[in-house]
């Protein structure tokens, strides 16, 4: 990273950086609290934390407008927060409360917000990749200028749905941006053990997609690459495959080990030195865009926001018993 040697950032660049720093901190603190709550049994089932990957959701979302669509896998707490779902509504969903963004019926893997065009939260690996193409199809069908960003892990590249969807997205020139969060592992399996070619971006050739490999620990790099992809999608609707190289600092899910047979403690420690939050903070300090006190202030601010979210979730009611039978069918 050489931003320091670049010309001093403009005011808007600095504002963007501050915003991204705050959003990454919000996600980090939110996830830390979620881990606590899980340990206390307030959250159940699977809970896939985003710690380490914050720059991906934050950098890419910053390149989007409120009218754009976002769809994710089950590892979507970060995206839900940066797309503007109140931390309280997200935490309440993890707690299974009636005030949750899916009314407590979806849970950690199924966060949704129709108003904010946050399309989930899907649990079957690869299953939402065709859905993203369908959203892109609807945008094009209506002649809209929105785009749909679809996040998934590198392990999803090995499943058929990924290929079927990318081919159709390209044949029909749909305004979709496929963001592969390559954190190098699918649960306990290193990608190179199950993929003949480990450069995910290679697959773009098979489908004539625009493509870039992006440093996923650099929020700014993710922002820039996504901005270019959004440009292509809005004008002419050319789809893009972004391979964003990142790393998961926690276990796959709350119940899974942080390291062990599949990756070493040293590797994790080494990777943590690339923490996207400290990196951006240091860049901004080097640019005199912020000082440690400023960072601390933001941190205190988001901590308060997260504490309020936990309080809100704690105090919110469970769905009423009848909710078991509602929303099975629409009128």
């Amino acid at each position, binding site marked *: 990273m050489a931003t320091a040697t670049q010309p001093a950032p403009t005011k808007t660049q600095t504002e963007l950086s501050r915003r991204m720093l705050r959003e990454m901190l919000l996600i980090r603190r939110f996830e830390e609290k979620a881990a606590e709550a899980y340990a206390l049994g307030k959250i159940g089932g699977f809970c896939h934390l985003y710690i380490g990957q914050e720059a991906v959701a934050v950098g890419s979302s910053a390149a989007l407008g409120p009218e754009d669509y976002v769809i994710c896998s089950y590892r979507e707490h970060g995206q839900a927060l940066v797309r503007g779902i109140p931390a309280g509504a997200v935490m309440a969903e993890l707690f299974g409360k009636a005030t949750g963004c899916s009314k407590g019926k979806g849970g950690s893997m199924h966060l949704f917000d129709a108003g904010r065009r946050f399309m989930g939260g899907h649990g079957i690996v690869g299953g939402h990749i065709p859905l993203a193409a369908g959203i892109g199809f609807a945008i094009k069908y209506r002649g809209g200028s929105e785009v749909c960003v679809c996040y998934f892990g590198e392990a999803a590249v090995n499943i058929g749905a990924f290929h079927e969807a990318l081919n159709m997205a390209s044949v029909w020139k749909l305004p979709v941006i496929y963001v592969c969060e390559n954190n190098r592992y699918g649960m306990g399996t290193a990608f190179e053990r199950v993929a003949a070619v480990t450069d995910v971006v290679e697959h773009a050739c098979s489908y004539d997609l625009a493509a870039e490999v992006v440093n996923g620990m650099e929020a700014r790099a993710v922002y820039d690459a996504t901005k270019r992809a959004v440009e292509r999608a809005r004008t002419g609707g050319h789809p893009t495959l972004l391979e964003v190289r990142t790393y998961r600092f926690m276990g796959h899910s709350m119940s899974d080990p942080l390291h062990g047979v599949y990756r070493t403690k040293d590797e994790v420690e080494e990777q943590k030195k690339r923490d996207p939050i400290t990196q951006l903070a240091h860049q901004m300090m080097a640019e005199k865009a912020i000082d440690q006190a400023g960072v601390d202030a933001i941190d205190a601010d988001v901590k308060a926001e997260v504490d309020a979210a936990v309080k809100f979730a704690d105090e919110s009611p469970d769905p009423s018993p009848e909710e078991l039978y*509602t929303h099975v069918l629409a009128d």
Partner: protein
Amino acid sequence: MPTLTYRDALNQALREEMQRDPDVFLMGEEVGVYQGAYKVSRGLLEEFGPQRVVDTPIAELGFAGIGVGAAMAGLRPVIEFMTWNFAVLALDQIVNSAAKMLYMTGGQFRMPIVFRGPNGAALQLSSQHSQAWESWLAHIPGLKVVAPATPADAKGLLKSAIRDNNPVIVLEGEMLYNTKGEVPDGELVVPIGKADLKREGSDVTLICHSKTVTVALKAAETLAADRIAAEVLDLRSLRPLDEAAILGSVSKTNRCVVVEEGWPHAGIGAQVVDLIQRDAFDSLDAPVLRVTQADTPMPYNKALERAAKASPEKVVAAARRVLYLD
């Protein structure tokens, strides 16, 4: 009343609904340029253009999911499977995405999508191309499942399915596409969840749907020759079932035979039997019997295939048994 083929009735339903609502589009293999593998979509590409009549690659899982995504974004997709045999590849999207979307989003995303195509056996298409998926699909909460037997029901039920705000499975029949029947002019909408009494009778109820309606009606003819008055009830909808119609008929006849195209073990007929013995227990004078496909994969050989399928003879035999005549 004009007479139409089942195929043209479906074609009319698609055309009328696409004219009525610009959000309705048709997607599937060969639906456009080729005019449909079974010509159900004949002329639609010419009338509505390639954006609303979309030819897909062979990627059932993918385009079913694209339909679901489009429905989330507010369109009303009609997804055609060339046959339901291939839809097995798309079940994850039908079951995990379409059927559960409204529920797991806490009511935020309706799923106005239709999945349609021919279901069950045709002639000598062998094991992999002759499967009836009624019971699998009807098993899933969040779906509605219809199986029209006549051109009029094909048109009316498909129109209802397209206007429904839930995922609706429309099970057609390759062997039905050429069958003719009267179809009332103008707006024809058949409500989902209502069975149709095809023939009145007091001695035994024959419950059927889709291709087995003709089988049951033929059996009723034969039985009539022996002065046995069979009532024939066409379910039309398999989820929800028209429980009132089923129970009403059986409590009148006190005897029942359930005919279906699929396999016996946990077939949809078993659910009908479960309902009857539970809610019409005291009016049953005999156990309910079922006529199904043989519990085997479908063989290619013509004679073996015929022997594997439900037939009027088998229905007559079952009816006579519940009447304790043999």
